[in-house]
């Protein structure tokens, strides 16, 4: 008789706690769940974390120039353009190897755009994460690159407008684009030929 009372007490307690647990779950679920858009963004983040770029072909200001990207150290990347210009990327900061380079706002922006279009993974990651954390839309829509189905992904702020095109199947970045009031351009990204891609 007494053991039955103990069992009933325990069962009641567990049932009560379970109810509170379910209620808590319901309360948490009242918060917005991740959208398909955000889940895609997260998958692209995961892909970018393992992806390396070997450089790109930049289409900027009416001309095309190739760029290679090489990892120097944990946070340092060297970007070498086909016209001889060399840019050093330290974290998310871009430095020109030419001290007397153009220091005007337009010149500084153009330098940053070159580094961005040249295929720097760290810049893409930072921009995409920032957009996701702020809850902004990521997916623009489907597209194709050379017949390969792809997604157009918005990264970073709304201005300047920065986009990545990733393969639908593998989420591998294929193209990057940049558009602001002063500068517009895009690039075709290529995989690294060695382990030192960036």
């Amino acid at each position, binding site marked *: 008789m007494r053991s039955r*009372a103990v069992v*009933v*007490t*325990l069962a*009641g*307690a*567990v049932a*009560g*706690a*379970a109810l*509170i*647990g*379910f*209620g*808590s*779950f319901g*309360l*948490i*679920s*009242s*918060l*917005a*769940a*991740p959208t398909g858009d*955000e889940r895609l963004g*997260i998958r692209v*983040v*995961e892909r970018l*974390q393992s992806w390396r770029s070997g450089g790109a072909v930049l289409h900027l200001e009416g001309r095309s120039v190739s760029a290679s990207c090489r990892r120097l150290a944990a946070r340092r990347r060297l970007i070498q353009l086909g016209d001889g210009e060399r840019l050093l990327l330290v974290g998310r900061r871009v430095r020109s190897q030419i001290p007397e380079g153009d220091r005007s706002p337009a010149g500084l922006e153009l330098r940053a755009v070159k580094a961005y279009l040249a295929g720097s993974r760290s810049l893409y990651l930072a921009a995409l*994460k920032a957009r*996701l*954390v*702020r*809850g902004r839309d990521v997916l623009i829509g489907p597209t194709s690159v050379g017949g390969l189905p792809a997604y157009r992904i918005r990264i970073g702020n709304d201005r300047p407008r920065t986009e990545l095109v990733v393969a639908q199947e593998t989420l591998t970045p294929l193209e990057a684009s940049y558009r602001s009031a002063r500068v517009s351009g895009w690039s075709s990204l290529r995989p690294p030929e060695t382990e030192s891609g960036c």
Partner: protein
Amino acid sequence: MAASLESAPDLRVSVPLRAWSTGIRVLGGSERASAYRSIALWWAGSRVLVFAAVLAAQALRWPRESWYPSISEHPFALLEAWDGRWYRTVAEHGYLVVPQDQSNIAFFPLYPALVKALGAVGIPHSVGGLLLANVGFLVGLLALYELGRTWLTDADAKRMAIYAALFPFGFVFSMLYPEGVALAAVALAGLLAVRRRWLLAGLAAALATLARPEGVFLALPLAVLAARRWRELSPNERGSALTAVLAAPAALGAFIAYAWTTFGDPLASQTAQRAWGRILSLDGPVRAVEELLSSDAFQGEWLWRDAVFCLVYVVCLGLALRAGVPRGWVVSGALIVLLPLFTGTFTSVSRFGLLALPVYAGLAFAGRRRWLDVSFRLVGGVLLVVGSMTILYRWP
């Protein structure tokens, strides 16, 4: 010698306790009504200090202009800084786990869910968040007073609430942070358990846990209380008491289950903490001390602030024990203050300790000496202003 309620007779029929449950009608003209008025005044006064201080810092744009938006554009911006932004993203967009980076899943769900609910009736998230925090704090102070009466004398309980209102780190209770709501839930859970309203106590404990992870430590004092009263309880009450004890872990389990079902990682909240440098390990306290001793001049000052508060909390917990505060509560407070050190840093211990209720009891016990009472109030008020004005220097 202070009386401990854990060994006291059934309090369900005592006049003061009935007064709480039957509402304001009973309070009119009583000693308690006077205490409530006094506590409400100290709450209002301390909040005026906080709001005035943050407005002054914003108006002066001290020490760096670029830190502050203009008052006309965004008044009280300081109170929405740091984690406040993260709580807002949870309220606005829900949880999202960004792999290997800082993610809002590190922030517990009750407060942003309430902010979102207020938003649904047209109250902007900033306004709703500040309203919740500050009103929650007032409720918390009154509940703290009531709980304090079950631990110490009425005068001590009143000082507990007043010291909490003036506590130097108490500016956090006015920020877009869940501490105000959590304080109310923790104190109410304790109070309702003492009054043998076990199911309501369990509900409050669950809400406390959903507001802040420290809430889960409520299971300890509730378990001790239930164990001590076990023989007096009817079979039904025993079931309810056990439910109350299990409620906080159940709520934590619900959050874990949500993370698991939504993101595939039951420990997503813990994992996200790593991006802030918090890594739970046995050698955490050693790493915390090493970090403290090796920190640079700027970083070090703020870390030392947290370390000093940690020490103050420990001393206050010792005083609370001496004053007769139930041991379950003191141990729970010690866990709140000391367990974060196992993540390898003193950072934010000052804020975590705000929910260790026996700390205020320890202060109130010391404040029986008149000169200490006056000192606590004066120093508390001054440091509250200093803390409020320097919010942007270092996250609380």
